[in-house]
């Protein structure tokens, strides 16, 4: 566990706080034919954990298992010291924000939010009062009477969040909470969601395949591939020191494995790289594509260090830059400006020399 | 669907109701084609030996005649080789509607003079209809007569479930006549659509008694028991039979009518519970 996040005490109704056995302690095993999810997951109260992984990695299954919507075939689930392994979803203190929100279309925003408290035994008046307070907190007071189809995507997302929080869950699950939004709305909603998660005192687990959402919203990332955890750590750790190709691609780094002897790493691909770290043994080497410079001919004056003979395999526009895929001595990706690409006259098949600043190549133990 | 050779018993489902008339007309269309060869045979027969019946006779007969007429048809065919009797059994009113609607039948045997009148009024009967059988009412009870019913008056008992035919159908009209003759007020649990469904209620023991025809009691075998009552004499039902104006095979049709009214024919009808007129 990395940090216990912000524990906001400005909310009414709280009070249990983080006990010794507080938080989430889960080992989720779900067997489904050829697919097997086997995931250990722990989180402290107040912590926001993001499950990050490609489609089909098992993130959503993990979320459904936590909610009780997919039965566990093995493992266990404890929340705040209470065993939840075989409890049905309706009796788990868990709130879920679904990917497309699943707001009940026949109920107003207010009644959507009041639904949970009502089901948990509150009187109609009390449930509606609580719902109104939640909507107010979300800045949606004037939309309380609106049916979901009248709400914008961002508003619907906040209603869904209010609905999930209105039951005072001890575990909040968010399934791709921003995936259904367009880019502009996404920016605003992400910022708002971040604020709401920051004051949320219980455990929040977020499922996403978007690294930015994960980095911004989560205190800790759990990278899931093929039903298993492949990497875990703070967003900063994971972004800087990816351990799989999937993460490296997500965070936009070239990633290679090799054996280090001091600052020199002999890559498994063959060539050697000079890095900033002084290490020995199996290591990962990561470097950003824009740390790579391409030359039409072998640059004079420099040594043979971090210089490889390559061939252009493909090119694509990447923002205002050109991402060039190289094969040859060392397969890698390089970013260069449109001007530089034009000057080099790059096209698939062009022979180039790629050089890498040693200061921007980082090695870390594998 | 409506006309079949004699050996097979068919009965128009009465509940078909309004649809029955339509079906009859449709049936008439098929009967047209099938009677075409009967027509030829009849014509050939009458040509070679005048007065000797041959070919197909199509008889429209009331449902209550199903059993007896089927037997009569078989015997008639035996007595007159080369003939075939085809029956269409159904509610008399539906059959009458079929005949006035142009169904190509030779003979119409009705369960009531009233329905026969529909046909004669339309000018579809050749000559005057003749009564060939009579039917009278009986009280039908479950086997063993558990409620110990012996008279029409017994039916007015307070806890007794009695079903009558609706007054719009012949057996209901007859029941009304008999009750009026006896000076009795009887509130049944149901006015059934026809005599067979009234009998069914007794057979299933849903009703304790029903006023139905003797012939129906007889046809039901040991499933019901019949109780005769004197007032039934006031409501005897005449069954008229007639040759039809547009009969395709008039010679054989007349022979069939004669056979029904003969001593042998009357014996078969008596066996079924009919009275001689």
């Amino acid at each position, binding site marked *: 566990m990395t940090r216990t996040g912000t524990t906001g005490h400005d909310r009414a109704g709280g009070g249990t706080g983080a006990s010794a056995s507080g938080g989430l302690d889960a080992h989720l095993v779900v067997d489904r034919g050829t697919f097997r999810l086997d995931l250990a997951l722990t989180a402290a109260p107040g912590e926001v954990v993001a499950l990050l992984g490609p489609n089909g990695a098992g993130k959503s299954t993990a979320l459904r298992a936590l909610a009780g919507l997919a039965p566990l075939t093995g493992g266990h689930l404890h929340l705040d010291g209470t065993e939840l392994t075989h409890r049905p979803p309706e*009796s788990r203190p868990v709130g879920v924000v679904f990917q497309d*929100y699943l707001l009940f*279309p026949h109920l107003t925003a207010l009644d959507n939010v009041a639904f949970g408290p009502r*089901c948990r035994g509150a009187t109609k008046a009390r449930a509606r009062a609580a719902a109104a307070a939640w909507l107010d907190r979300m800045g949606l007071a004037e939309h309380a009477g609106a049916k979901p189809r009248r709400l914008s995507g961002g508003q619907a997302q906040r209603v869904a969040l209010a609905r999930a929080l209105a039951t005072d869950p001890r575990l909040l699950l968010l399934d791709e909470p921003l995936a259904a939004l367009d880019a502009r709305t996404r920016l605003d909603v992400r910022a708002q969601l971040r604020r709401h998660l920051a004051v949320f005192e219980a455990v929040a687990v977020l499922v996403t395949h978007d690294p930015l959402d994960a980095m911004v919203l989560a205190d800790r990332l759990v990278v899931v591939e093929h039903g298993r955890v492949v990497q875990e750590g703070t967003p900063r750790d994971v972004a800087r020191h990816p351990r799989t190709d999937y993460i490296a691609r997500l965070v936009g780094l070239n990633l290679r494995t090799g054996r280090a002897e001091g600052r020199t790493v002999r890559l498994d691909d063959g060539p050697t790289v000079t890095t900033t770290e002084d290490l020995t043994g199996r290591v990962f080497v990561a470097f950003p594509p824009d740390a790579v410079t391409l030359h039409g001919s072998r640059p004079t004056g420099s040594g043979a260090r971090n210089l490889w003979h390559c061939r252009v395999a493909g090119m694509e526009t990447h923002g205002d830059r050109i991402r060039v895929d190289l094969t040859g001595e060392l397969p890698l990706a390089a970013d260069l400006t449109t001007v530089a690409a034009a000057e080099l006259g790059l096209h698939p098949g062009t022979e180039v020399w790629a050089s890498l600043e040693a200061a921007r190549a980082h090695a870390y133990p594998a | 669907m409506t006309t079949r050779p004699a050996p097979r018993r068919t009965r128009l489902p009465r509940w078909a109701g309004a649809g029955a008339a339509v079906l009859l007309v449709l049936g008439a269309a098929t009967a047209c084609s099938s009677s075409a060869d009967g027509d030829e045979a009849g014509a050939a027969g009458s040509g070679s030996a005048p007065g000797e019946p041959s070919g197909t006779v199509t008889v429209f007969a009331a449902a209550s005649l199903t059993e007896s007429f089927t037997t009569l048809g078989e015997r008639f065919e035996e007595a007159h080789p080369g003939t075939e009797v085809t029956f269409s059994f159904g509610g008399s009113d539906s059959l009458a509607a079929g005949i006035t609607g142009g169904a190509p039948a030779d003979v119409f045997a009705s369960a009531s003079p009233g329905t026969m009148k529909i046909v004669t009024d339309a000018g579809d009967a050749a000559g005057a209809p003749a009564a060939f059988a009579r039917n009278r009412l009986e009280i039908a009870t479950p086997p063993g007569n558990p409620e110990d019913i012996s008279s029409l008056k017994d039916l007015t008992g307070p806890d007794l479930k009695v079903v009558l035919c609706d007054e*719009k159908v012949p057996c209901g009209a007859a029941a009304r006549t008999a009750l009026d003759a006896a000076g009795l007020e009887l509130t049944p*649990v149901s006015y059934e659509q026809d005599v067979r469904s009234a009998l*069914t209620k007794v057979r299933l023991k*849903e009703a304790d008694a029903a006023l139905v025809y003797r012939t129906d009691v007889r046809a039901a075998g040991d499933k019901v028991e019949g109780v005769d009552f004197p007032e039934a004499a006031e409501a005897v039902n005449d069954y008229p039979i007639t040759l039809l104006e547009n009969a395709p095979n008039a010679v054989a049709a007349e022979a069939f009518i004669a056979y029904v009214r003969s001593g042998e024919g009357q014996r078969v009808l008596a066996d079924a519970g009919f009275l001689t007129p």
Partner: protein
Amino acid sequence: MIPADTSGARRGDTRGGAGARRRRPGTGGGQGVPLLLLLPALVALAFLLVPLVALLVRAPWRGMPEQLTSPAVWQALRLSLVCATAATAVSLVLGVPLAWLLARTEFPGRGLVRALVTLPLVLPPVVGGVALLMALGRNGVVGQWLDAWFGVSLPFTTAGVVVAETFVAMPFLVISVEGTLRAADRRYEEAAATLGASRFTAFRRVTLPLIMPGVAAGSVLAWARALGEFGATITFAGNFPDRTQTMPLAVYLALQSDPEAAIALSVVLLAVSIAVLAGLRDRWMTAS
């Protein structure tokens, strides 16, 4: 249900937009309707409507005021409406849960049960009536106990009419509701469960409102079927004015002696059905 941004993306999709624009002139007016569809459609319409029109053409309009003022007609009409509505209500109370069971649960032989549920649709109604007598009659398999324990005997009673009509009408409702349930998004029920709703609460507060159009359509079908019910009713409940004689029975018996009166009664039944169905349809259309 479609998230706002998805529809936005679709709107932005130029290919889709152009396609929609291209199609629009064809769908309006009717000149774009293919002849191969239009002709059979018109034949179907004519086939369904001509008999009804013929009924109106031949109706004894002069005798109509007399028919309409006859208390017997009003008794039969009132009884028909009351019984058909009661049968629909019973079908709803029992049929919707059955539809839920068929659509939402797994149990051995479910396919067979589903087929059995639809059996009353193929059974001739008269046979249905006889079957009901054998089950619920005074000496029926179940009926004898009803009679012995509670003194309840259904045949020849208004309740019997409702039973007979429910028997033939409920399958329509069950089939309609089951279809809607299968098409409905089950994830709403999951969302309700995560909010603390039991399966029953989720059904009552989420699923049921969502499948309301299907329930309404099924109810209309069931009501219409019950209103026109003849065979099972007359067989099971008999025929007694103001107690079990519904309009179809009155029509049938009138046909025996007075076809003109039968047509007049049918016209009355038609008019009332059209008024009720059109009224309900409008209400539901505006409600949804």
